[in-house]
């Protein structure tokens, strides 16, 4: 596609349920990032994939969060046993570079845990 695509665009879930958020990066981009933005906050780094290297998971806030990237393309961010503090906009970005240079963002998934 022309840009980074995320689905769903909005998700409302009950506390304690699991959710999966999907990201389709720009074709050919080797780097993929997940960030989240809580209300009134900046962009918080979650996880970073670069090619076949081991992902940088240093930003995942708890073991309820996990992510995978299949075939070096599509990525899924999974949040288990969701809590109200998980409510945020989850943003995915991809980059043709593996060096932290210009990244292209999707429109985000707004997650609301009720």
């Amino acid at each position: 596609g022309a840009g980074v695509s995320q689905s769903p665009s909005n998700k409302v879930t009950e506390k304690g349920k699991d959710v999966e958020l999907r990201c389709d990066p720009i074709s050919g981009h080797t780097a993929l990032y997940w960030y989240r933005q809580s209300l009134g906050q900046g962009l918080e780094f979650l996880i970073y994939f670069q090619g076949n290297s081991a992902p940088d998971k240093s930003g995942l806030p708890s073991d309820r969060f996990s992510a995978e990237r299949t075939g070096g393309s599509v990525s899924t961010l999974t949040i288990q046993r969701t809590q109200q503090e998980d409510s945020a906009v989850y943003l995915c970005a991809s980059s043709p570079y593996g060096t932290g240079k210009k990244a292209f963002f999707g429109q985000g998934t707004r997650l609301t845990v009720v």
Partner: protein
Amino acid sequence: DQQVKQNSPSLSVQEGRISILNCDYTNSMFDYFLWYKKYPAEGPTFLISISSIKDKNEDGRFTVFLNKSAKHLSLHIVPSQPGDSAVYFCAASNAGQGAQKLVFGQGTRLTINP
């Protein structure tokens, strides 16, 4: 540990005047800096970047200045236009090391008044 800081959460500027957005960082290993612009309900979009080997980069109405000794960068927009009203994020990376994540500031909401 907030490695990238934008100390002004908001800024209001009159149309036609100069907007100056500031960003400070603490990690001396950062060698690549970017500014992103974000409209509501959209993902951030890349605006302009600068490598640490430079102290200025200009693109149309947008200029980024880097002061390495002060660990400070700024984005100048001149003349400011109503369409510039958005949240601006600065970001930094250690691109020289390869495969590094972008670290974002908290953002500054810029409002251009007609």
